[in-house]
C-alpha cells in the first residue's frame, strides 16, 4: 500500500512538472490577451485594416474615449505590418523551397558517406547562426551588394514588363533583402527533412524505377519526389511559421517602414515581430499604457498566426507520418 502511494505520488509529481511545458503556452496566450484587451476594445477592427500607427500627442493630457484613457490623436492600425510580415515570409519561401529541395537532392543523391555528413552539417549550420549575426551580415555585406549591384540589374532587366520589379530601387534596405535573409535562415529545415526522406526511400522503389530504364535523376523526379509532397508542404509551412516570427535579422535589413505599404519588391517594410522589438522603447513613454497594450495586441495577433500556421504544418506532417 505504502509502495502504491509512493508510486502514485511519483507519477503525479512527474506529470505536474511535465505539465509546466504545455501550461506555459496557455499562460502566454492568456496573459497576452489580458494585456491586449484594452487595445482590442479601443481599436476594434480598424486595427487590422488601417495604416495608422500613431502614439498620439505625448505632451498633451490624456483624453477619455469610450471609457478608456488614451493620448489625443492616438491611433493604432497595423495593416502595413500584417502585409509586411506575410510578404517577407512568402517571398522567403518562394526562394527557399526550390533551393532547399534541390540542395536536398544533391545531398542525398550526389554525395554519400562522409561528404554527405559534412555537406549536411554545412547546410544545417545555416539554422544555427544567430539571427542577429544574419542581421549584421545582411547590413554590412548583403545590403551594399544588393542595393548597388543586384537591384539595379533586376530593375533594368525585369522592370519594363513586371510592375513589382519597377524602381526606385532604394538603398538595399527592404522587402526583397529581408526575404533573402529569411530564406537562408529557414532553408535548412526544408533541406534536412527532405534529404532524410530521400535517403530513406526503400531500395526496391529505386530498383523498380531503374529496371524500367529510368536514370537516377528520373527515379528521384518521377518516383521519390511525388511521394514526398505532403512532407514538403508540411515543412514548407513550418518554415513559413519560422519566417513569420523572425525578429532581429529583419529588424536590421528591412528598412522598418512606418504606416506605408511596399509599392515594389525593393521598398522598406516592417514585420510584426521586428516592430514589437523596435517600438517598445517609445511605447513605454505613453503614460496611459495604451501603446504597450497595442503592442501586446500585435504580439497576440502574431502568436495566433504562428499557432495556426504551426498547427497546420504539424497536422500535415502527422498525416504524412513524419514528426519533424
Amino acid at each position, binding site marked *: 500500500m505504502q509502495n502504491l502511494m509512493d508510486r502514485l505520488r511519483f507519477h503525479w509529481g512527474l506529470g505536474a512538472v511535465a505539465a509546466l511545458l504545455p501550461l506555459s503556452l496557455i499562460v502566454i496566450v492568456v496573459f497576452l490577451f489580458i494585456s491586449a484587451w484594452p487595445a482590442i476594445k479601443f481599436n476594434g477592427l480598424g486595427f487590422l485594416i488601417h495604416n495608422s500607427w500613431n502614439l498620439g500627442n505625448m505632451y498633451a493630457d490624456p483624453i477619455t474615449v469610450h471609457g478608456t484613457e488614451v493620448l489625443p490623436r492616438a491611433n493604432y492600425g497595423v495593416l502595413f505590418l500584417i502585409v509586411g510580415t506575410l510578404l517577407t515570409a512568402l517571398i522567403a519561401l518562394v526562394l527557399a523551397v526550390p533551393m532547399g529541395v534541390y540542395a536536398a537532392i544533391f545531398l542525398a543523391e550526389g554525395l554519400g558517406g562522409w561528404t554527405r555528413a559534412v555537406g549536411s552539417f554545412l547546410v544545417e549550420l545555416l539554422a*544555427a547562426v*544567430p539571427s542577429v549575426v544574419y542581421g549584421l551580415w545582411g547590413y554590412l555585406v548583403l545590403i551594399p551588394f544588393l542595393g548597388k549591384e543586384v537591384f539595379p540589374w533586376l530593375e533594368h532587366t525585369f522592370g519594363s514588363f513586371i510592375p513589382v520589379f519597377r524602381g526606385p530601387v532604394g538603398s538595399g534596405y527592404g522587402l526583397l533583402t529581408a526575404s533573402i535573409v529569411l530564406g537562408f535562415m529557414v532553408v535548412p529545415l526544408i533541406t534536412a527533412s527532405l534529404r532524410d526522406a530521400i535517403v530513406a526511400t526503400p531500395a526496391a522503389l529505386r530498383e523498380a524505377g531503374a529496371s524500367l530504364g529510368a536514370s537516377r535523376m528520373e527515379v528521384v523526379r518521377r518516383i521519390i519526389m511525388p511521394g514526398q509532397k505532403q512532407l514538403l508542404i508540411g515543412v514548407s509551412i513550418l518554415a513559413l511559421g519560422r519566417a513569420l516570427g523572425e525578429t532581429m535579422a529583419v529588424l536590421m535589413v528591412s528598412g522598418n517602414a512606418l504606416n506605408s505599404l511596399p509599392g515594389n519588391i525593393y521598398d522598406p517594410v516592417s514585420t510584426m515581430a521586428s516592430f514589437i522589438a523596435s517600438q517598445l522603447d517609445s511605447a513605454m513613454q505613453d503614460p496611459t499604457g495604451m501603446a504597450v497594450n497595442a503592442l501586446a495586441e500585435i504580439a497576440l495577433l502574431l502568436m495566433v498566426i504562428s499557432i495556426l500556421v504551426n498547427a497546420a504544418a504539424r497536422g500535415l506532417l502527422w498525416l504524412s507520418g513524419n514528426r519533424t
Partner: protein
Amino acid sequence: MKEMTARQHTQTKIKLFAISPLRRMVDALTWGLAAVSFAILAFVLLHILVYVFIKGLPALNLKIFTEDTQGIAGGLRNALLGSLVLSGFALAIAVPIGVSAGVYLSEHGEGWIGKISRFLSDVLVGVPSVVLGYFGYITLVIGFGWKFSLLAGSITLAILMLPYIARTSEMALRAVPQSFREAAYGLGCSEWRLIWQVLLPAARIPILTGVLMALAIALGETAPLLYTAGWSNYLWTGHFTHEGVGYLTYVIWSFIGEPYESAHQLAYAAAFLITGMVLMINISARLLLLTWRR
C-alpha cells in the same frame, strides 16, 4: 560477315533503348540545379563565418575580456559574462522541467494527455521568440515588478529552451530498448529507480546533445532579452531582480548602428565571440553524438 551483321543488329537494338537527348538534358539540368543550390547555401554559410572571423579577430584584444563597456567603448567583460549567466540560469530552470517532461512523454505519453502535451509543445517551438520576450516584459518585468533583470531574462530564455529539451529527451528515452525496462522491473526496481539509474544514464548522451543545442539557441537569441534582461554597462552583481544584465547579442544589434568606429569594433568582437561559441557548441554536440553512436 555473319558476325558483323550480328553486331550491327545489337547496335540498333541498343539504340532503341538509348536515352533520348531531351531526357539527358533534363537530367543534366536537374543535377546542375541541385549542385548550384547546394553551392549557394554552402557559400553563404562560409561567407558569413569567414566575414565574422575576419572582422572579429582584429577587434579582439585583452581589453575585451578584462574591461566593461563604457558607453560605446571599452571591453565586453560584462556582456560576455552576462550572456553566460543568463543562459546558465535558463539552463538550470529548463533542464529539470524539460527532462521531466521528456520522461513523462516517453513513459506515460500514450494517452490523450500525452498527445495534447506533445502537440502544445510542438506549437510552443513555433511561438516567435519576440512574443516570448513581450510576454516576459508584461508579466515578469511589469507584472511582478522585477524590472529588467537576470531572472526575467533567464525565465524567458528557459521557456524558449523547454520544448527543445523535452523533445530531444523524449526521443532519447524512447530509443532505450524496452528490455531495459523489463529487466529493471523484473529485478523489483521502482519507477523512480528505473528512470534515475537505468533510463537516464542509458540516454544521457542524446539528452546532453539536446541540452547543448538548446544552449546554443539561447546564447544566440536577442529578441526575448531586449525587454526582459535590458542592458547594463556593469558586471552582474549577483542581484536576480531590479538590475539589468548586459549580453553579447545586444552589443551586435545596437552598436553596429552607432556612427563610431569603437562601437563597430565592439560589435564585431561580440559577433565573433557569440558565433564562435554557437559554432563550437554545435560541433561538439555533433561529435558527441557521433562517437556515442559508434
